[in-house]
Every structure is written in structure tokens, then in C-alpha cells.
């Protein structure tokens, strides 16, 4: 692999042992996929959890060499007391351990955004920027909606990029690998009437058929909201490992279908209609009966508009005493929600608004607090909750989920 003089110095250990280890990891990773060189990155998105010794060793003697944001914590013990979750370990000791990771991040110069949607709160790569991000939903969003370039990085590779400012030049960083192989047509669907949760359902269906291939969807309305785009992008890698989804007329590498396909022919054409949407909806709805234990929003993290919608639904009402209501959002969004009075409404109704994971690893599910059923408008949360916990899922629109939070019962109608 070709290395620049600066990269050679990092590899030789002249920039400290952390940068040397990170270079070693990136070079092996690049060699495994025949990369000929490394590329400089405009940003990295990392997770500070995982094995502590890995974080410590990889950051030893190092500082961030690019703009770095952090992922929503999965195992953060910081809010357990506030949430009233009882666990069989010493929470204060765990919080002190967690603080050790936060201290490393601050010393490194990582921005503690603690979110799965950093593009909403200050890390917005521009078109053609090469970046190294973990978090599958964000990877699809920035590749597709923004035309930035990232591979589906594991936490380890993204951390190595944060330390070195480099990533192997391969895969989706190369323009010739960014064309769509799978062409999706909407047939018999009223695209203009699709709701946020419908977009998640659509993404989940497509991802299952596309696998790891690039996708182009034809027929989506130009009026798609940020939230609809976010939920479509986040669902695609739940059923497959899609990293790039062009949308004709909406995304920057798909002014036309021909551009998205690179003037070639797709390997596969998929048609999605009401039958496929209904079947996918049923596949994601695993809960039976009507009793709801947990309602979770914010997977990926809620935008301010989503938080506002939840607050409107709860205003002047109380969450049912046997239901937990959890809303996950980035810290900046929570700050704005406080300024707007939305946070007061949600918390006054008995709900929680926090920057912990709003999805399958939200603390009520992750720390095993006896939750049997969870209601959500997030396809990603619906897909993963039964895999990471014993909870089964009620899947529906935000209004259905708010109704469940207030009544303790699921009354959402299947599509």
C-alpha cells in the first residue's frame, strides 16, 4: 500500500502508540480489500463504548486528526437512577467507569454529540466528502441524501480514522462503485400519502431483497420530509446491509434514473405495492394482545419536529401509570425542546426525554427491566427489539404510539 510521508511517520510510531496501532489496523483492513492507498477523511463518527482496553490503546498519546462526533451510548449507566431501573450492579461505580471513557473523548477532542443522527446536529458532510462513520442509519443518510462518501465502517475502523484522519480508499469511496444495482419501482402505491412509518416499512422490504447492493428508488415525492428520509434510510440496513440508496429527483447522484444506474442496466428490478407493504408491516408487528409496557421514539434520534409532535400529543394528559414512555434525541434537540417548552410537556406527562439510545438498546430494553411489549413508530427499533430483548413489538404511526402511552393499550389498525 502506498503511504505518504506523514502516514509513514504515523506507522513508524512518531505520532504516538495509538496512531501507530490505528495505522496498523487501517493498513491490514485496506490490504484485505486490495486498497492501494489511504484517503484523508473530512470527519469520523465513532462510538466510545465497546472494550475499554481497545479505546485506551487506540487513543494512547493521540489527538483527533479530523472532526469527530460520538454515537448515542448503548450501555450508558448515567440515567439508570433517573429512569428507576433496578440492576444487579453498582450504578455509581459504572458511572465512574463510563466517565473514564468520556475523559478520553474530551482529551482526544471528540465532540460528545452522543447521537445516532450527527447530521442533524453539526456534522453535515458535503457532497463528495470522504468520511469514516459507524452507525448504519447515518451511513445510508449521508451517502444517499448528501452525496458524501463513507463505507459501512465498524466502530474499530471509524475510531482508527478519528485517530489518524485516514481511511482505506476502497468501496463506496470510489465513484465507480456508487451506481445502483437494484432498481425499485413503486406500483399501485400512493407515494404522496406515505407516512414516516410507511417509509420505514418500504426501506425494510427493499433492504431484505437488495442485500449489500446499491439501490435506486423511482417515484418518491419531492416533498419528502427530513424525518421521512431519516426513517427510510435507517430501515434499509436492518433487513440487509444497504449503504447507499439513490432517490430519483431527490438525491444528488440521481438527477435521473440513468445517472443513478451509471447508464447501465440494473441487476434486478423490484416492484413494491400495497401487498408487499402490508406483509412487511405484519412481519414487523410481533406482539399479540393489547397490553403495552413501553413506548419508544427516537430510533434514529428524534428531530425537533418529531419531539414537537410527541409533545402536542401529550399536552394536558398523563402517561398511563403502567407504561414507560421514552423519547431519544440529540442533546442539542433536547436543549431546543426545553427552550420551546416541549421537554416540560413530555416530562410533565410522565415521559422521559434523553440522549440515550431510543431504539433497541434504550435502557428499559437493554438493562432488562421486564418489558414484554414495546410500541414504536421506528422500523429499526421494531426490527431489533426482539433480537436484543424478550420484548415483542406493536408497530404503528406516532399517533397510535402516543395513544398506547396514554391508555396502556394498543389500538393501532394494521395497514
Amino acid at each position, binding site marked *: 500500500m502506498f503511504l505518504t510521508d506523514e502516514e509513514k511517520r504515523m506507522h513508524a510510531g512518531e505520532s504516538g502508540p495509538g496512531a501507530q496501532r490505528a495505522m496498523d489496523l487501517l493498513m*491490514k483492513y485496506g490490504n*484485505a480489500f486490495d486498497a492501494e492507498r489511504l484517503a484523508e477523511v473530512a470527519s469520523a463518527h465513532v462510538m466510545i463504548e465497546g472494550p475499554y482496553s*481497545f479505546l485506551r490503546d487506540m487513543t494512547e498519546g493521540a489527538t483527533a486528526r479530523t472532526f469527530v462526533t460520538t454515537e448515542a451510548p448503548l450501555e450508558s449507566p448515567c440515567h439508570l437512577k433517573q429512569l428507576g431501573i433496578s440492576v444487579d450492579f453498582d450504578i455509581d461505580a459504572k458511572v465512574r467507569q463510563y466517565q473514564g471513557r468520556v475523559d478520553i473523548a474530551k482529551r482526544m477532542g471528540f465532540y460528545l454529540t452522543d447521537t445516532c443522527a450527527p447530521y442533524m446536529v453539526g456534522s453535515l458532510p458535503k457532497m463528495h466528502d470522504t468520511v469514516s462513520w459507524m452507525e448504519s442509519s447515518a451511513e445510508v443518510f449521508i451517502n444517499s441524501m448528501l452525496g458524501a462518501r463513507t463505507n459501512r465502517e465498524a*466502530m474499530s475502523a471509524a475510531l482508527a480514522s478519528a485517530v489518524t484522519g485516514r481511511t482505506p480508499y476502497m468501496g463506496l469511496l470510489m465513484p465507480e462503485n456508487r451506481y445502483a444495482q437494484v432498481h425499485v419501482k413503486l406500483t399501485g402505491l400512493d407515494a404522496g400519502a406515505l407516512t414516516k412509518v410507511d417509509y420505514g416499512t418500504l426501506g425494510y422490504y427493499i433492504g431484505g431483497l437488495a442485500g449489500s447492493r446499491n439501490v435506486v428508488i423511482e417515484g418518491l415525492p419531492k416533498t419528502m420530509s427530513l424525518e421521512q428520509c431519516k426513517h427510510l434510510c435507517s430501515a434499509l440496513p436492518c433487513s440487509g446491509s444497504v449503504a447507499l440508496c439513490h432517490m430519483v429527483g431527490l438525491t444528488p447522484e440521481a438527477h435521473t434514473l440513468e445517472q443513478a444506474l451509471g447508464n447501465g442496466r440494473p441487476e434486478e428490478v423490484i416492484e413494491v405495492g400495497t401487498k408487499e407493504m402490508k406483509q412487511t408491516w405484519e412481519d414487523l408487528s410481533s406482539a399479540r394482545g393489547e397490553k403495552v409496557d413501553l413506548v419508544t421514539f427516537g430510533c434514529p434520534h428524534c428531530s425537533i419536529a418529531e419531539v414537537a409532535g410527541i409533545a402536542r400529543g401529550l399536552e394536558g394528559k398523563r402517561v398511563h401509570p403502567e407504561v414507560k414512555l421514552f423519547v431519544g434525541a440529540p442533546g442539542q434537540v433536547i436543549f431546543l425542546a426545553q427552550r420551546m417548552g416541549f421537554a416540560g410537556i413530555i416530562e410533565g406527562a410522565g415521559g422521559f426525554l434523553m440522549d440515550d439510545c431510543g431504539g433497541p438498546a434504550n435502557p428499559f430494553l437493554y438493562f432488562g427491566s421486564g418489558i414484554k411489549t414495546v410500541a414504536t413508530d421506528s422500523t429499526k427499533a421494531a426490527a431489533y427489539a426482539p433480537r436484543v430483548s424478550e420484548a415483542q413489538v406493536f408497530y404503528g404511526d406516532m399517533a397510535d404510539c402516543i395513544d398506547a402511552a396514554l391508555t396502556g393499550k394498543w389500538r393501532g389498525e394494521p395497514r
Partner: protein
Amino acid sequence: MKLQGHTINPGESEGEAIVYNGLFSFLGDLDIPTGTVPTRGHELEGQSLVGKIFVFVSGKGSTAGPMIAYAAKKRGNIPAGMICVQAEPAVALSAIMADIPMVDRLNVNPLEAIKTGDYVKLNATEGTVEVNPAGV
């Protein structure tokens, strides 16, 4: 029989082969405290990968897989070596982070050339695989 492949993570190891004709995810398919496959209904359910040469199609699933491999390595509960048809990033990084010698893209299909129980010598630095070598 000697096969030639492509290095994912260098190193040398040898042991008994365990062959799985499918996609493998360290997150979900490997139990860190035991090194066995805990997945219900999995073809390898309950079997240990510890110290074996694991032969499979490719990786799949969560990009958290490499962290699981790293944690399992701390307890010694990982395969001695890995051979797959063609690696994807999650499984390649799993090998790199847990420092498991690994090759892919062999000159023959390893799922046909290697059977569970065969003795395999892997030189991932050179990219070579010897199946049931003489004198072992």
C-alpha cells in the same frame, strides 16, 4: 492438498476444520464466555469454534461484530484460524482485531475442498492452506 488464497490477517495456525456453508456474524453467532455458537436453530448450534480452523462463506450483520471478536479473544474463545470464500468488512475487521490468521479468495472453493474434521495448516501470511498434510 495445498491451496493458495489471499491474506485478510497474517499469521500461522493449524487445527481441526469446522465447515459452515453460510454467512456468520460474530454478534449473535458467538457466545463470548464459551466460544460456542448459541444461535437457536443454527447449523452449528452448541458447537465450539475455539482452536478450530473455521471455514465459511462470508460475514454478515452488525458492524459491532469485531468488538465481540476482540472481547472473545481476551478469553481465548476464538477460532485458531479462518478461511472464507470472500470476506466482507465486518468479518475482516473481526479477524484483524482479534488477530486471527485469515485468508479468503482461494484458488478452489474451500467449502468443497475442506470437510469438517480435516486437519488444516494455515499460513495466512503467505496465503497458503494445507489440508490433511502428510506427517500430521
